């Protein structure tokens, strides 16, 4: 047994048709859920033999079984007409036991893959000198391997934990951005391509971006993508990661130099941590194939954005005393999170100071005030913006 080793997390993302970037990732997970159902059919594990032979005249005459000899049987009700094995069955492995009443057994001689035309089957017995009556032959029970049918398209989820290490939020992490500034309507539906490890994908769509920040800590973000279509493997592609710019000094957002703006209007003097989340819900358009050679239906022809919601939560020292009494429409808040790195002067590369700004201008959806045994008043507030 051998595990495939990777040093670091080789992840590359790009907006379709554009240059991409290697990601400073902590971890990557691709998971896939498959909705499969069996569809059992009437009497699909009931074996009925109407003739021992290849189905010439439907006259049932039982052989006197001899151990180890193969017997061809025609399947179906007594007197016929013959009936093929159920198509709900994927496979009947060779040596599958068929149990008849009165302690009698036969065994399938060969693997059978039912295709709707299996009127005949071959059996053998382990013991000899016995017969199977016509009535017993209608009551054979066996346990096959059943088919599964896909009920919905296959969809994967790519989850990435990474560090925001640039001043510009890349297009593939920017839910509200536009790949083509001239596009109308101005809603980005471009797909994202890339690879992680040696596995490439070409149909991914960003669903959510989250990060949080607190004093004296770096900010780690997480993003989630919907993934469709095939993965392909290229054993050499991950080598590109190890020669990328990520192995030079990186600038990472840090709570020490980052700021929150807009909290004082809420009665909070000193925010100590915040979290930010932007999520979009999407609709998928699949179309039916029109003939047997049509590959439509495997991947969506359109992945559109339905609504985008921004949530921002701040924890701090206090809150406005009007915590409950604001009236029927609540109160509004306009918050900004300004991310900065530590801005060391004695490093030349990637020492930028200001990195990026995230804003949330919406309604206050929850507040809390608490005091614990350590004796400090803590306030927290959550704001939600319906962006789209």
């Amino acid at each position, binding site marked *: 047994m051998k595990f495939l080793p990777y040093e670091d997390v080789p992840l590359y993302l790009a907006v379709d048709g554009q240059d991409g970037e290697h990601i400073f990732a902590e971890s990557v997970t691709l998971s896939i859920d498959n909705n499969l159902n069996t569809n059992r059919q009437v009497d699909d594990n009931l074996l009925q033999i109407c003739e021992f032979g290849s189905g010439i005249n439907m006259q049932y005459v039982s052989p006197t079984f001899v151990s180890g000899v193969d017997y061809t049987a025609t399947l179906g009700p007594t007197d016929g*007409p013959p009936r093929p094995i159920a198509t709900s069955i994927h496979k009947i492995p060779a040596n599958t036991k068929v149990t008849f009443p009165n302690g009698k057994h036969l065994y399938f001689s060969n693997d059978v893959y039912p295709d*709707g035309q299996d009127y005949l089957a071959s059996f053998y017995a382990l013991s000899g000198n016995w017969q199977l009556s016509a009535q017993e032959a209608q009551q054979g029970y066996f346990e096959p391997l059943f088919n599964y049918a896909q009920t919905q398209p296959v969809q994967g989820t790519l989850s990435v934990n990474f560090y925001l290490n640039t001043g510009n939020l890349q297009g593939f992490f920017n839910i509200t951005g536009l790949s083509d500034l001239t596009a109308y309507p101005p809603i980005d539906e471009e797909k994202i391509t890339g690879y992680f490890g040696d596995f490439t994908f070409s149909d991914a769509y960003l669903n959510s971006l989250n990060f949080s920040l607190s004093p004296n800590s770096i900010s780690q973000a997480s993003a989630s993508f919907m993934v469709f279509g095939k993965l392909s493997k290229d054993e050499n592609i991950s080598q590109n990661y190890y020669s990328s710019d990520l192995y030079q000094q990186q600038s990472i957002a840090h709570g020490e130099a980052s700021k929150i703006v807009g909290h004082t209007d809420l009665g909070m003097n000193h925010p100590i941590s915040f979290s930010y989340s932007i999520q979009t819900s999407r609709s998928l358009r699949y179309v*039916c194939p029109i003939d*047997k050679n049509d590959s439509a239906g495997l991947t969506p022809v359109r992945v559109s954005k*339905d609504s985008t919601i921004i949530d921002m939560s701040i924890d701090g020292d206090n809150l406005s005393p009007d915590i409950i009494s604001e009236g029927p429409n609540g109160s509004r808040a306009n918050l900004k999170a300004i991310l900065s790195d530590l801005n060391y002067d004695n490093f030349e590369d990637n020492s930028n100071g200001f990195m990026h700004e995230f804003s949330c201008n919406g309604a206050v959806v929850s507040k809390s005030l608490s005091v614990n045994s350590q004796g400090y008043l803590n306030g927290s507030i959550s704001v939600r913006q319906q962006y789209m």
Partner: protein
Amino acid sequence: MNISRTSTNSFNLRPSFGSEASFSSINDEVTFGDNHSQRMTKGINALTMSLNLSFQGLTNDESNDAISFLQSQFDYEAQNYSNEGRFTNKRVGVFDYQPFYPYKQHKFMCSDFTHNKTSFNNNNVSARFLCVGSSILDSVEASLGHNETISSKLTFPTSLPSSNSNQSTIISNSDNFCSLNDNNFIYNSIDYRVAKVQSSVSIQEDQQISINLKAPFGFPDGVSTSQHTNLRHSIYIDDPNDCSFYPYAPKHKGSTIPYRCFDFRPNQSISIQNSPKFRDANLTDFYKKFNKYGFNPNLTNLQLSFNGRSDLEAKRILLFLESHLGYKKFCFHAQSGYGGHVQPNSSPSKSKLSYFYCPQWSHSFTYLNNHSISATFIECLPN
């Protein structure tokens, strides 16, 4: 909605999964005593097809185009008398449409449609299309045995031994152009041995060709009939030659059945409703006498579902039902327990074989290689 009239005569949007095709036949029926009956389709256009289609996730432009097109079929036009001697402004327009697998392109009219705008630039349109101008005369399907007009006659000069591997053999064709696709089947006329075609071949009449077959139980020399000719035709289904059926009269008790057998198994839970016929004499409203009806008192109606079927199996089921035109009888295996019994005291009024006709069925394309078909089977007597 800003209707933009276009010169196109076709509707090009592909439907989403979950769309449905429904078929119904309009029959005349005469019922005699003892539940004997005869039925016949009312006319050559009496087997109708309708599509319930959904188009999900359309952009504003796509939905505008779709609704404009569908609305414009009913637009008022100024009166115009053509050189052919008729008014050209009266009829509702029909258009070409290619439905989902396994149906062929046909002419349709749209009788009702709905537009839902779910979010900015995201629209759902659902529509009901009626197929126009289809005829049962377009159904060309051999019934039982060899039909010199539309079947081909294949001769195997040598027998094939039983083997699970491919075998190559020479066959000749003496009737009609035969076109065999891979995964078609050739059936032996003497028993139920079959040979599965491994690679597509075409055999002209009076020609011979090498063919690769798989015959796990062997295949005897001699003559076999095949439905797979270029004359085979379906009203609604594309490429009927993908489907193979046992072409001979089904064998039963040393003889044969004069109808084809519906060999597909419905889903596991069938509800078989029994409402036997009887005679009751209402002498007063509180005194009744119940008497037996006579022969054949208990004919059943079945509502059957065939879910989770592969592309090919769904096509075979649909072609079988279509080729019976909504009124022709076929033999169907009821579930075990209803199929007669070898015990001598089994009910004589319930024969071991059941015959049905199917006047309506519907097909839903659930997902790739996953189809659902529901059908109404009405039991009838064989003669």
